[in-house]
């Protein structure tokens, strides 16, 4: 394989993997901060136990999100150095801001939260929980602003052969980003919601005979997760619809390949499922079940709009952005070859449907959970906990499919041309890679994939252990009788020289 292919696999693997941890971290951080707020406000022990239990699972996952994120900061320079040089003037700024404004807050206040239970006053400790959880959301915003610039470059002029930023405001308020942020954050909450529902349902079922004292903890967690999941799906639908309309204007080829829409249609129908091979852009052997005019609505809010098909778009793209790659030896075997403007259609077509389908399944589980727990009920059946556990996977699948769709759907570009933007501000993926040797990229591809796979097994192993252990396994051990002074309020650290730490690694 050539460096380009290896580099793409590596970026895909490391980024999709990183984004398994990230949504759970974002969603669960905010929910745990909410649980802790409920405890601080009401003093109800149930909320403390929720905070401790879900907080522990959060930490097991958080660590993985942090360490896989380090790779993200450096791999642009390592593997995509031509890209980094070309876009650095614009793309580097939101990345630097993320580090300086969000990531510092996240990691510092996470440390304070983990170790600060007995060192900080209750409310300050709670503020630390909000600081790191909101910082994860801020991180997401800056990264999405950077990614959205690749989908839809704005706020730049073209000087000396590369884009230079002329408005950070335009970059940070890119309408592509403003639609992607609620969509991605809601996707993160959908993940955390399914996690709560699945685990709480299983704990409720497991403790049904033993008189588990924590049933209120699990029931509240189940309800919280179910509400969150349903609300998240509502946001996903609305923001996804906004994204669809932007995609129609900004990335028509991505729109057409999401549908594997070969011929221009007016009005355009939406394909629900296809039978046959969608790989070829000629549409001959494919039968597809469609809803008439729905795609026109998704694209432009009416039932008449014309949506361009792949065939017509290829011609337009060739006219605007060239029909052949430049004859540059840096392009390897692609030098001077015709440019293939059609993304990988099976991936875009099915990725789009998997995203929507699994997202909807996840929301359906939330609705079911709300129904089964209505008016103080506790689900008794055997099948519900199994279903709920299995559906933990659904929003993860939906998130991954959505990202794979949106990133592969913009190929062959790494920076997609803005149809109404400045001329020259686009870049083909083939031009973006470093001049490193294939051996180097093989080394990182293999080693990172192996380490990620091994650590993924360890993370799941630990999560399962903590779920089995329940709340008691995460509550600090009770002090021995006779030693019963009030440990709830923090004291001056200097006075407590002989105290055992509330938490230690």
């Amino acid at each position, binding site marked *: 394989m050539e460096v380009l292919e290896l580099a793409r696999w590596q970026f895909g693997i490391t980024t999709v993997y990183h984004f398994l941890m990230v949504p759970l971290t974002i969603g669960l951080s905010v929910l745990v901060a909410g649980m802790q707020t409920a405890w601080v406000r009401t003093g109800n022990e149930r909320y403390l136990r929720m905070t401790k239990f879900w907080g522990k699972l959060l930490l097991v996952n958080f660590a993985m999100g942090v360490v896989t994120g380090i790779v993200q900061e450096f791999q642009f320079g*390592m593997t995509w150095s031509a890209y980094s040089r070309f876009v650095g003037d614009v793309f580097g700024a939101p990345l630097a801001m993320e580090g300086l404004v969000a990531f510092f807050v996240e990691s510092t206040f996470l440390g304070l939260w983990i170790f600060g239970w007995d060192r900080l006053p209750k409310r300050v400790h709670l503020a630390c929980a909000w600081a790191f959880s909101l910082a994860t959301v801020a991180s997401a915003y800056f990264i999405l602003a950077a990614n959205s610039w690749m989908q839809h470059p704005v706020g730049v002029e073209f000087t000396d052969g590369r884009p230079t930023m002329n408005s950070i405001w335009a970059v940070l308020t890119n309408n592509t980003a403003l639609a992607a942020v609620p969509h991605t954050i809601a996707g993160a909450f959908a993940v955390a919601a399914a996690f709560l529902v699945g685990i709480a349902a299983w704990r409720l079922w497991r403790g049904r005979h033993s008189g588990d004292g924590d049933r209120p903890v699990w029931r509240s967690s189940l309800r919280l997760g179910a509400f969150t999941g349903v609300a998240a799906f509502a946001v996903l639908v609305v923001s996804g619809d906004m994204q669809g309309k932007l995609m129609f204007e900004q990335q028509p080829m991505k729109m057409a390949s999401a549908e594997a829409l070969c011929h221009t249609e007016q009005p355009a129908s939406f394909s629900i499922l296809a039978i046959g091979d969608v790989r070829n852009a000629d549409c001959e052997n494919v039968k597809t079940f469609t809803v008439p005019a729905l795609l026109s609505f998704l694209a432009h809010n009416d039932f008449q709009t014309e949506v361009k098909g792949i065939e017509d778009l290829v011609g337009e793209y060739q006219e605007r952005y060239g029909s052949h790659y430049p004859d540059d030896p840096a392009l390897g075997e692609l030098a001077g070859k015709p440019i293939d403007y059609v993304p990988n259609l099976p991936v875009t077509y099915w990725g789009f449907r998997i995203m929507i389908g699994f997202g909807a399944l996840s929301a359906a589980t939330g609705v079911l959970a709300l129904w089964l727990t209505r008016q103080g009920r506790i689900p008794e059946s055997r099948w519900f906990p199994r279903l709920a556990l299995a559906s933990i996977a659904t929003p993860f699948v939906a998130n991954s499919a959505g990202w794979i769709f949106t990133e592969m759907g913009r190929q062959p570009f790494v920076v997609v041309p803005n149809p109404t933007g400045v001329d020259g501000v686009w870049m083909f993926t083939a031009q973006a890679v470093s001049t490193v040797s294939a051996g180097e990229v093989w080394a990182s591809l293999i080693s990172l994939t192996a380490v990620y796979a091994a650590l993924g097994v360890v993370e799941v192993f630990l999560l399962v252990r903590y779920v089995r252990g329940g709340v008691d396994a995460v509550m600090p051990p009770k002090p021995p009788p006779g030693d019963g002074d009030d440990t709830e309020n923090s004291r001056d650290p200097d006075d407590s020289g002989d105290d055992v730490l509330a938490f230690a690694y």
Partner: protein
Amino acid sequence: MMDLATLWFCIIAAFWLGYLFLEGFDFGVGMLLPVLGRDDTERRVMINTIGPVWDGNEVWLIVAGGAMFAAFPAWYAGLFSGVYLPLLAVLLALIGRGVAFEYRGKVDSPRWRRNWDRVIMIGSWVPPFGVGLVLATTVLGLPLDADGDRLGSAFSALRWDTLLGGLAVVGFSLVHGAVFLALKTDGELRHRARALGLRMLPAALVPLLGLTLLVQAREGALWTAVPLVAAPAAAAVAWWRLAEGREGQAFAALGAVIAAAALTLFGALYPDVLPSTLDTADSLTVAGASSSPYTLQVITWVAAFGAPAVLVYQGWTYWVFRRRISTRHIPKAHAPR
């Protein structure tokens, strides 16, 4: 008035210095884990001296990288693709290390902990070596072509002078970690850490001083000779204060050592950011590799508000966890069965 590109060169040097100073000691703690920690409780004391802060320290590396991307894209691209394999080793080690701290106590089994201790140890030896090698490479140069790309093999960054850079940061981290442990622990561990620090200090700082001398001889300016003299003086002060039992002052003096070394290294590098060893015309320079003035203005505003805030809340964290830790503070292992 300094131009913005030069200001950002200084800011990036300061981020690297902050990283070496902060994560230097927490690397040292991890490196010394099998040496100073005689049983599990002692090892837990050591890990918990850095428990609340190591993650915040590591962000200095990420921000140094991010700032290079934003302010000097060609530096970021040329250096990190040029040192691909050493940087990969650093990343892999940091991945393992971060997870190890968090996961080590989550299963109550000696074997489990022993394995994670190994990960912490490897994860604490490899990155300072790799980071030292990368920094020495940016000061001493790579075989760059006119596009700012590395010519030559994947191993062209592995030379005796860059390896000296790796040893320099390893040696500094070892001493810094020992002094930090003497400062943050109590009881027998504190005495052992102090004794080890005293014994190691003169030899362990030799590579760092050697590197600064080498860089000064090759590329130095007149003013960069001043920190060159200050570094051994600060090292002597560190030894003396440690011998007197003033660990805090020794720790601060080690900070002066690394600051002086960084001044010489980055001062000698300026106005280049990454010299080409083939043709000085192909060297990446502060003026040539920097982003546009507008971008530099934007990130200057962000740094002007962001960076002082970081110093305040990270400083506060160290204040909150200022207490010395000893074996009697360590709670019993608590993990699900």
